[in-house]
């Protein structure tokens, strides 16, 4: 595994134990994601793409779901690895040791306290329906600053300390001025008539202040200083979290919350929301679908994760907004050097944004290649069927091509290769043995007996 690989999924098998039977949802998935790339995971509804994504985050609910086999290796940043507890106790009393191999940690075996260090900070996820994914009783600003407060306590504490230390010597008196609307509709300072921007508190030309109390006095400064020094050293200290629960002592969090809100506003600007101040105070149902998805992206990216999992982020949006969101994700990816796992059933999106693609069918990964290869030379019959199904403007057809049959029931999946019931090139061997994913060309793997030869696999 090279140093650039962020995620390495090896032979993942997941079952769901339901009343109707055992659903063999994921049956052997192998894939890896490299730093900085966009990996697309394509497939029909119900083929297991979301389950794979959820398992990377450790979000598979344990009662119905069970991870039968497999490992997911994650190249975690050092600070996170340092804070992980080596052992964890599970409910039934058994302990699990941390699986670490040269800087890569195995996610599926992580204790829940450890995986919480990863979620939101090193790997984050955005979902399909932004309206239901945001909590309706909290404002957008609250939800963004929540994740910042959760994960970046140390940075916030340091920023607050800096502010506390510098405020000491500024006791200047400021001239009071107000903002007025000038001739062409721009904002001007009333005392010097220079141009000012909307959220500036001091006039850059003459130095008069637009707010009533520019020297925000912080009471109990020494007490706060002590607390924040402690927080910068050890954000998870028990005494600090206890104090956060006691009503009056909770005030110590205020400067930190203000810092977090500032950063949330910066994130909102980063996701190109035009009016961040109002959006911060709005509730999710007051925003449009595109804005909601931007807020979700802001939440996901605020801690600069290594990997962003986008689970069909544009399916619920209008086509024009789709394009904007995809472009936004691409730009942010470049700025932050994040990898993206893009889950979609829309091949158009795959062609637009993905560097490499994995095609899934009925819980198995059937083909894995770069986007060019997949589109130019689809090898697996299922992929070929998908490509043929796309209506092409330059061909005159009387019927649209389809793939015969239906998606199989995963409680009783077809024997051998799960696609054999619908495959136009089905052979006897396909019903007996399941094909393994093998490399046909460099970077292009297929799981099909057509390419493996009989007896292979």
């Amino acid at each position: 595994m090279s140093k650039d690989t962020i995620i390495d999924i090896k032979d993942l098998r997941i079952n769901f134990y339901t009343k109707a039977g055992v659903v063999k949802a994921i049956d052997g998935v192998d894939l890896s994601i490299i730093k900085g790339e966009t990996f697309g995971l394509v497939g029909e509804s119900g083929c297991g793409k979301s389950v794979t994504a959820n398992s990377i985050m450790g979000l598979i609910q344990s009662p119905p779901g069970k991870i039968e086999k497999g490992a997911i290796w994650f190249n975690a940043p050092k600070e996170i690895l340092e804070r992980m507890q080596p052992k964890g106790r599970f409910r039934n009393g058994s302990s699990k040791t941390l699986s670490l191999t040269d800087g890569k940690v195995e996610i599926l075996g992580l204790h829940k306290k450890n995986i919480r260090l990863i979620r939101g900070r090193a790997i984050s996820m955005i979902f399909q329906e932004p309206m239901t994914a945001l909590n309706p009783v909290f404002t957008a600003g609250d939800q963004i600053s929540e994740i910042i407060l959760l994960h970046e306590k140390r940075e916030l504490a340091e920023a607050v300390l800096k502010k506390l230390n510098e405020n000491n010597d500024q006791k200047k008196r400021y001239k009071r001025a107000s903002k007025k609307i000038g001739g062409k509709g721009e904002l001007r300072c009333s005392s010097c008539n220079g141009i000012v921007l909307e959220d500036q508190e001091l006039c850059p030309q003459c130095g008069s202040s637009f707010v009533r109390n520019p020297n925000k006095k912080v009471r109990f400064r020494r007490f706060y200083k002590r607390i924040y020094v402690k927080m910068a050293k050890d954000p998870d200290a028990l005494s600090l979290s206890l104090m956060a629960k006691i009503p009056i002592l909770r005030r110590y969090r205020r400067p930190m919350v203000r810092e977090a809100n500032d950063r949330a506003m910066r994130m909102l600007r980063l996701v190109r929301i035009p009016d961040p101040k109002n959006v911060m105070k709005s509730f999710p149902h007051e925003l449009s679908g595109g804005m909601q998805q931007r807020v979700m992206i802001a939440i996901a990216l605020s801690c600069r994760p290594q990997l962003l999992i986008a689970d069909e982020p544009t399916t619920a949006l209008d086509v024009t907004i789709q394009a904007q969101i995809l472009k936004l994700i691409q730009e942010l990816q470049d700025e932050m050097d994040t990898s993206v796992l893009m889950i979609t059933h829309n091949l158009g999106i795959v062609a637009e944004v993905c560097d490499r693609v994995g095609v899934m069918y009925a819980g198995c990964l059937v083909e894995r290649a770069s986007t060019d290869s997949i589109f130019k030379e689809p090898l697996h019959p299922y992929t070929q069927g998908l490509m043929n199904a796309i209506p092409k403007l330059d061909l005159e057809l009387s019927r649209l091509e389809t793939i015969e049959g239906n998606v199989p029931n995963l409680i009783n999946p077809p024997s051998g290769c799960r696609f054999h019931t619908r495959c136009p090139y089905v052979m006897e061997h396909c019903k007996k043995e399941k094909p393994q994913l093998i490399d046909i060309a460099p970077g292009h793997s297929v799981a099909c007996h057509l390419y493996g030869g009989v007896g292979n696999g």
Partner: protein
Amino acid sequence: MTDVQEPDTTSAINNISNTSSSTPRVPPKSRFNIDSNVLMKELEPRVRELRNSLGLLRENITALVGLGFVIFIIIIALLAPVICPPTSADTMYIPRDFKQPKPPGADGHILGTGNWGTDMLYGIVWGARTSIIISLFVVITGVLIGLFVGSIAGYYGGRIDNLMMRITDVFLSLPALILAMAIASILERSLENMMLALIIVWWPSYARLIRAQVLSIKESTYVEAARAIGVKTDRILFKHIVPNAISPLIVAATMDIGAVVLVAAGLSYIGFGVSTGSAEWGRMVSDGQSWFLSTVYWEGKAYTASWVVIFPGLAILMFTMGFSLLGDGLRDILDPRLRR
């Protein structure tokens, strides 16, 4: 996870078409012109649904326990004349020996005696009858009135709806016990008047329930389709809307049977309804209250006469619990989303 099941309607349709496409029979000439084949075809899916419901019932433990309680109580009520033969023309009059309360097991009184030496077993057993009569009468009448008011208000909407909803609002703004107290305190103290008070208290909630159901069903496509082919209004109301609105009503009615008995017991405890010494559980509690914490002597041993209060209360508890559990179970069964 997608769970594609083979629809079995295809096989059902095949079965039906097989039977009717055999030798073309001349339908029997009956006065009502019922084609028995058509009747079978209509009933087939309903029979299947019924079998499905019974299967679900069997799985649901709480509903079974509730059903068990209910059946037990009904049997006791039916067998009341056999278990405890009445001693006077008024069956509500509990036979008594005008002595101090006796503990359970004394003198052949299985549950002991209470105030004025009334036989507790008689009171409990005939009290079951009283409770069932009261609750059934109140609930059924309330449902009928509520059904009438609610369906009209829901279907016609507009001013009629508004007026009726204001009226139900007024009744619903008075808590049940309080309103029943108010009405019963004015009228003469009798069982019938107590039932009347309870009916007045209970019908508005049914009217609201039905109206809500009617409103939501009214907008659905199959009613629109029926109207499009020109079916008359009241036929739509009774043939389409009412059967679909019935299931939450059945659940509410079942649970209310228990609730009515609770309020009726409360009312008779205070002093309404039946006269003292009658076989009604609430009244028995209030009669026994004076003996409740005092000591009585029987065969040389001292007992605290707690049984005079405990047994009637347990009976009320069992009754209400049984119907609540049954109602809960029915709700789980009748909810189409939870089936299969």
